[in-house]
């Protein structure tokens, strides 16, 4: 009796151990299948074609530069829009707001995190796009800027929650010491608390950037999907096309294994590697600072 129980225990322990390793397996599987379908693109498509400025697959133009620049443009602008709101709200919730206000506002911001991106894209089409067309008096409201506003909105909850966590982990003794030296609460926030939470806030920004870069539906629905090079100043107010939107809108219509299919997977590899770099960088920043603060406090 006791023997079988021990045996059962060993069995369940090893099952748990294996599931624990599964995350590594899945990352490798994802990488493997992206490479398997995408790498042949490098053989079928000359590098000169890939790094050209023309994306027009029907006639064999597979230049991914406009798509990469499109993604970078909307991501940068979205982050610039989201930063003041995200960090501002995080500082307010963590340092200024009384607890009861925080208890009301935090769930509301979490609601935004829960709204599917296709819903925001829909509202974008029906509300933002006509508004921007009229307000800026431009031929179409389907622009990079419209996409950036939506992406900013989408990345705010990520930035708020990670930055607020970072501010909450700053020991209270820091604030008390600063106040005791005669600094106001405002000065304490800017000169003591925020600098102490610097790396956590940086992590928040990185994760927000990752969120914007990878977002698909909302950005596909409102940016007009024109694969042009965003090189002029007013490109921001013209249609553009991102890497994610290209995959989502074209993959449904290509034959498996065709050149077009392979190049779309290649774009997927680029996105995978970008998110890998952003996330590893973000986690390195936060572990490094944790080690430092542990040293300081011990």
């Amino acid at each position: 009796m006791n023997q079988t129980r021990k045996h059962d225990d060993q069995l369940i322990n090893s099952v748990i151990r294996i599931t624990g390793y599964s995350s590594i397996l899945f990352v490798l599987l994802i990488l493997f299948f992206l490479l398997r379908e995408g790498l042949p693109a490098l053989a079928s498509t000359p590098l000169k074609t890939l790094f050209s400025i023309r994306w027009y697959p029907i006639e064999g133009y597979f230049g991914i530069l406009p798509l990469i620049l499109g993604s970078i443009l909307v991501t940068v602008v979205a982050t610039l829009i989201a930063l003041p709101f995200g960090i501002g709200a995080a500082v307010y919730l963590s340092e200024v707001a009384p607890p009861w206000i925080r208890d009301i506002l935090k769930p509301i911001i979490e609601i935004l995190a829960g709204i599917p991106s296709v819903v925001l894209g829909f509202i974008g089409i029906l509300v933002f796009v006509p508004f921007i067309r009229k307000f800026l008096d431009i031929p179409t409201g389907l622009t990079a800027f419209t996409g950036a506003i939506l992406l900013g909105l989408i990345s705010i909850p990520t930035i708020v929650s990670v930055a607020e966590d970072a501010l909450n982990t700053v020991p209270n003794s820091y604030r008390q010491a600063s106040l005791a030296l005669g600094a106001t609460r405002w000065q304490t926030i800017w000169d003591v608390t925020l600098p102490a939470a610097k790396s956590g806030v940086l992590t928040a920004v990185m994760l927000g950037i990752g969120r914007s870069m990878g977002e698909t539906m909302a950005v596909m629905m409102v940016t007009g999907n024109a694969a042009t090079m965003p090189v002029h100043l007013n490109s921001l107010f013209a249609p553009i096309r991102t890497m994610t939107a290209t995959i989502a809108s074209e993959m449904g219509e290509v034959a498996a294994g065709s050149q077009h299919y392979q190049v779309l997977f290649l774009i997927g590899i680029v996105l995978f590697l970008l998110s890998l770099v952003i996330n590893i960088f973000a986690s390195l920043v936060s572990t490094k600072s944790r080690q430092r603060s542990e040293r300081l406090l011990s």
Partner: protein
Amino acid sequence: MTTTSKHRKEKINEQLGFIGLRIITLLTVIPILGLVAYIIVKGAPAISWEFLTAPPSNGMREGGILPAIVGTIYLTIGTAIFSVPLGVMAGIYLSEYAKESTLTRLIRIAIINLAGIPSVVYGLFGLGLFVVFLKFGTSILSASLTLSIMTLPTIISTTEEALRSVPNSFRVVSTSLGASKWQTVRRIVLPQALPGIITGVILGLERAAGETAPILFTGATFFLPILPQSPLDATMALPYHIFVISTQIPGMPVSIQYGTVLVLLIFVLGMNLIATLIRSHARAKRQW
């Protein structure tokens, strides 16, 4: 400048700064509430018994959205079947079994990366592995498996967090009474952490239910007059249906669009609400 006037200036700065922060926070929160209220107001008139129980007709411009609702329920259940056991066990491993080692660090890096991979890349992966390589075709099975892997990091992290919040003394007492590791986890730690785990599971599934990009080429279909008959059938789904009726069909009545959006929002935010209620209920009841 005298000390008092400098002090007064600093006080005024502080007041202005706090007002600025309040305004920024309000500007963040009000659009969210406005958005939800706007969708409710515009969508509510479209919702009727027929809308919820009939298939679309006349090229989606009339009728209801039953196949999309049922499809989203199937996908959510399918995702739960794969991701909940796997994610909860992986969370148990990280909290109760794993020691600090290079391997554990690798697991954590892998989880962080899974959480950060763009949803459309999950779609590509699902296409490459489940649809093409394993030949499951464009199906509920392929889409559920794809969504499961995307949901895993949320479930693993929240499970781990919930288990870690159980005080260590519970484990020490159980082990000292002669219980094995698994008995301790199964009988003592898991029940205590259950509300936290359920909350995390619901939040993970909520995200899966609202996703479009991962199911675009793994399981979603434009139109299906009957309900899917097996896990190997493709299905309509609410998020993809919203995309279709807002971009692909000219002359689509706005009321049906808003009605569909409202149904998805109720589905998703309803799950969110349940998760929040479970969490706060458990916090109030907790004795440690």
